[in-house]
């Protein structure tokens, strides 16, 4: 199959690649770039495990072709921490044990990032609604909601200081 040239920025790094038009963004990130933190839980856009940020917005990387991201910027779970320093959302998930098996977790963290960008102090109901597009089979969600709430507080403190 004919290949198409692709240029995009992933986690702050410029990449150039030749890809088949049918290659999904998720498979491109996982296979071509080795960013295996983006997980595939359904490949039909429901479970949210493959959530990444495209120009700052949460998207499902299983529903996008890699070629659609030409000239855009993608952030994956690997781009959240600054070196050794965890992002406050990641810290909150660790402290609140907002995960068990961890398969869905990268998607939740990126959806939480998207929510907290738009709504710095969400209510519990707003958190539930915002992450209801991500599925988790282990936790029962309460620890994830608590993690997002704790993350909002951490980010608030960060802004204040």
């Amino acid at each position, binding site marked *: 199959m004919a290949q198409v040239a692709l240029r995009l920025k992933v986690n702050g790094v410029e990449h150039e690649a030749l890809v*088949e038009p*049918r*290659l999904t963004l998720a498979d491109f990130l*996982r*296979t071509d770039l*080795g*960013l*295996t*933190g*983006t*997980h*595939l*839980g*359904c*490949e*039909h856009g*429901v*479970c949210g*495990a493959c959530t990444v940020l495209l120009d700052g917005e949460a998207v499902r990387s299983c529903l996008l072709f890699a070629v659609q991201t030409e000239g855009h910027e993608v952030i*994956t*779970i*690997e781009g*959240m*921490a600054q070196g050794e320093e*965890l992002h406050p959302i*990641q810290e909150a*998930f*660790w*402290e609140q*044990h907002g*995960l*068990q*098996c*961890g*398969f*869905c*977790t*990268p998607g939740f*963290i990126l959806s939480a990032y998207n929510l907290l960008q738009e709504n710095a102090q969400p209510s*519990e109901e707003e*958190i*539930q*609604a915002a*992450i*209801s*597009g*991500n*599925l*988790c*089979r*282990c*936790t*029962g*969600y*309460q*620890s*994830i*909601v608590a993690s997002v709430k704790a993350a909002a507080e951490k980010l608030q403190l960060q802004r204040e200081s």
Partner: protein
Amino acid sequence: MRPRGQSASIGEPVKASADLRLITGRGVFVDDLHLPRMVHAAFLRSPHPHARILGIDAKNAATSPGVVAIRTGSDLNLRSKLMQVGETTEASAIDIEVLPSGKARMVGDPLAVVVAQDRYLAEDAMELIDVTYEPLSPVLDADVARASTDTLVHENLGSNVFSTAEGGYGDWDEAVASSDVVVRETFRQARCSPFPLEGRALVADWDPADAKLTVWSSSQWPHMFRQHLSDLLNIPLDHVRVVTQDVGGAFGLKANTFREDIAIALLAVELGRPVKWVEDRRENLMASAHARDHSIDLEIALKNDGVILGLRARIVDDMGAYGLYPWSPDSWGKLLAVSLPLPYKVPNYQWEVVTVVTNKAPESAYRAPGNAAGAWARESLLDIAARQLSLDPIDLRRRNLIARQDLPFSPLGGGAPIDAVTTEEALEQAAALIGYDDFRQEQQKALAEGRYLGVGFGIYIKAAGRPKSPATVGLSETGLESATVRMSATGAVQAFVGACSGGQGYETTFAQLVADEMGVPVDAVQIQMGDTDFPAESSGTWGSRSTVVVGATLVGAARDVSTQMIAVAAKMMEAPQEEVALEGGFFIAERAPSERLSVLDVARAAWEDSSLAPSTLGTGLSSTRHYEIPGPTYSNGCHAAVVEVDTETGKVSVLRYVAVEDCGPLINPMIANGQIRGAIAQAYGSVFLEEIVYSEDGLPLTTTLLDYLIPDAASMGDVIIKHLETPAPGSGRFKSLGEGPLVASAPAFACAVADALSPFDARLTRLPLKPDRLIEATGGD
């Protein structure tokens, strides 16, 4: 080191160590492996529920770009032993081929496997394979299948009844004759999916130089899987290595050895290069396995005061088209039957389980197999009986619970005595926390406003850590668990266990157990698991056994190493062992307290100086222990829910939820509470949402997450959790928690809805309680 026995971490919410790699995207799930020369497999699956396979033509597919190999049953079946399941006194065996060659027996039956340079190319080629089918009429309904001899799923069985098993104790007829009332109802639990977020996945690689097969598998039981690979492929056990790294949930699905596993291993051996197969969600929902397809006809005989005299259960289990190796296909129905009377004193009990073959996906264990569906049926029937006898449902339960004064209680159906359970306390506390005393008033008041509120309770006693089990096929009769603890020369503790974690947090809780036993900080302990080349053996992580079995084994091995260290320190200080103590991280001899040795001093000396060896048999600080506890431990709990049902829309809102659990001393409350909340969510799913549906002609209709619904974050709010921490008797104090909460939760939800709709005399005997069913039950439309 601290003096032994002073817990520093047990009971503390120590942050889970595995979480760090998982929140940064550095976990390693099977699909994250990229090995040199690796190729990718896809399975061609039958679109027919039942069809003769007349021919498979792969000519065009073979020349498709990137194809490495295409194999069918005729290529692979003779290279593996048949996966034989279920031969018992009650049943003949079903012999399962790697890829069916004569007939397809379910939609999704794997008929051919394509290996190509990537998965896209494998699927391209798959579409070019031409299969000629002769469709046969399928059997889909268990009752129809039982009666039919025209259409047989497995001709060698002579019928579609795989087995009829019976059991019980006492005399049911006598119980009925002495009773004031017999209440009967048939409960229908929906077929559902274990649904781990990560489906089945493996990479197999064959090293011809060492003649060694290495398989990376998303598994609950790498050692059992190694045994199965060795047995079926006729490779010596020590030439098979199974590695299980991060597992994206399992819930029973990954304690089976599947046909696809064997096919991929065979291809790796044949091709001499790594072969990866990762099922997609459609394959997972259609063709991996389903669970809980039970019909439970339950009768209970009682006195007017609510005392239970007897119970009779007639269970029909739809096992689907095959068993799953190595379990007998009637295991889960029998487990349901045997677990039904607990947690009550039922003096007479009779059961029958008919296990029926149909053209649907096979039945797997799914978290609390048998127990969860059975508890829903039993507790629902108790509520119906209470209504009929005009008794308070809580009083009826109080009258029959296995209570403190009954302990130790020998189950009448056999099995180890039940001890150290707190059923009454759990019930009373749950009733108090849910506000039961005032609830009836609240309910009446709501009813006057046209709102339907209900309360439901679920109670369980669950055994875990039985040494003996059907899963120990080919292994010792007593089951298997061993662990190795060693103190390295650098002062770090490594503990090797055979269990593996699919989210249970064992890397943390096991480290806490070892750390406290040895008096070192938790982060000085590394838990090494999921590799059959490690010095540990295991029957796997299932049946809530790991904390009970591995925990006790690890603590024993850790204690040995502590004792060895004291011996080495005593030799170094030329002091009698009994005069050497560990204080503040140092070994101190009574007679010369100023001469102290650090943990590191002793560890290094023990490994480097053979004259200091703690035993005559070797150097170093290390111990391997086997699980030696004779019987299971019993945990118990009581959950209560208050719900509101909107009779216009059928929507159910959970207003309050309480879980009282006794899993013994908590190792890590944060991790324990996660297990409880997760189990409640899965119960919510099976009560309100989850149902695998087949069309009348046998096509699976729930093959995406748009059709098969699992709970999401908005399903329900938080729950109140209360722990009773009664230690188990014997040397292992810890009890189980993985499954019990689900057993209590399913009835709590369902009974609450039934209570809410009691003004309509609604019969809620079929799960899930979807809005349309609830509206229908209230007489609406």
